[in-house]
């Protein structure tokens, strides 16, 4: 039997981009790639153009205050081999800036707007960075951060 497509992909990606921090198969039909911020856009373009990840699914972040970092995650799908890739980049909590991925997949616009309001991540070059779900007069900070206290509670 031939290898599952996600394993072939992980090997091909590692040889094409030796600088990715990690690329692994999580389980059947799930792969995960972590990149450094410097290579973020370059690898993303390569994922779209060379590896066929033309179908953007979603995006979101996770907060690790104890390790002083956040991780931005993008979910991508290859319409041919039908497995999900979680494309991740780690950000230090005191410098939450990332070039916008809307330059590669336009549809990440909503998900980056959500990550911006929920986690306070700045997406440089995003064409329309306005709140997505929170009201315009929201003063409660970033709700999905682990140190969020509640609406109206000042830091």
């Amino acid at each position, binding site marked *: 039997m031939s290898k599952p497509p996600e394993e072939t992909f992980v090997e091909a990606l590692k040889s094409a981009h030796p600088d990715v921090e990690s690329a692994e198969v*999580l389980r*059947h*039909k*799930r792969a995960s790639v972590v990149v450094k911020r410097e290579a973020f856009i370059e690898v993303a373009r390569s994922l779209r153009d060379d590896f066929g990840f*033309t*179908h*953007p*699914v*979603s995006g*979101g972040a*996770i*907060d690790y205050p104890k390790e002083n970092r956040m991780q931005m*995650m993008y*979910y991508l799908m290859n*319409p041919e081999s*039908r497995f*999900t890739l*979680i494309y991740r980049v780690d950000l230090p909590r005191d410098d939450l800036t990332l070039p916008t991925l809307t330059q590669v*997949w*336009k*549809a990440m*616009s*909503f*998900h980056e707007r959500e990550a911006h309001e929920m986690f306070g991540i700045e997406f440089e070059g995003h064409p*329309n960075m*306005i*709140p*997505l*779900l*929170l*009201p*315009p007069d929201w003063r409660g900070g970033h*709700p*999905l951060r682990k140190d*969020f206290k509640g609406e109206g509670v000042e830091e």
Partner: protein
Amino acid sequence: MTEPVIEPDIMRISWGPQHPMSGQTRILLDVDGEKVHRIIADLGFTHRGIEKILENRTFLQGIIPMERMVMADTPNIGLGYVAAIEEALGIEVPERAHWIRSLLCEMARINSHLYAFGLQAESTGYFPAVFLWTTVDRAVILDLFEELTGARWSLNFFLPGGVHADLPEGFEEKVIEGAQYMRRRFANYWVAMVENATFEMRCNDVAVLKPEDAIRLGATGPVLRGSGVAMDVRKDEPYAAYGDLDFEVITESACDSMARTKVRFREIGQSLNMMEQIANEIPGGPIKTRAPLFARAKAGEVLSRVETGRGELGVHMFTDGGMNPYRVKINSPSLRNMYVFERLAELDEILVADIPVVINSIDPWYLDSDR
């Protein structure tokens, strides 16, 4: 929402959230005469912070707020979360429970699509009757839900390790009877709606979404399949009993509002077949395995995917050894389709009067997109 700048010679119309056809959202339409120049979706009116709520609930408690995301489709949504818990805790599910889950999921898909037709008929402005028909006919499904689970809408019937209760005596026959009734009714719907000249006039060639655009913009569910892309989680990664059930992934090649409606119609046919197949072939055996009520999952992450009535739902759960999930990221299908809706005005010429038809052909559920 901070409103984007209005371009010269463009008028901005605020549509919703009180408009009868808008649902619980607001849409800004920049119009140039009758032509829609730009669509801006203003979401968040029903944002309840479900992702944050789930962080403060044990795995079992979380099933209830999670299911509130789409009331017409609670088994599918609940299954996404329950499947994530099972994978995180390493719980096995008996075969019969998988079949009961698929049965409820397909019945909920019919219920959810019925609601979509009702609204689609309303939005074409000619069939107030169809909305009433669908409301009456869905009672067949809801009665079956009630008999099996005790609830008509929010079932909370799946739990880690299986389902709450076994099928009551004679339930299989009632399922077959219900499916046969539905099939007769759908023959009527097809003639009254899809083959009706007015409905065709309102829906044909409206808001064409080409397959490459549907993929590029991240469409999902009937919107993606209405553009001819055969993508369905039930086939791609069979969960529950879908590996053993006979069904095909429905696609339509016309890519317009009519195609998206037809996909839902034909999917109901598939769901009815599956209901009958499950009633006839359901295997015996236990319906749940013993799973601890307050379990601790070891640190890690799981991503479960299910096909809901509106498309692919992803539940990405992170665990850290505690009794609650550390973080749950919900990849909601309606949010993806709302982005497609925003872009539609750039892809095809849409008139202001077409907007209700277009949005109901997309069928977003705002509590799902806002979470």
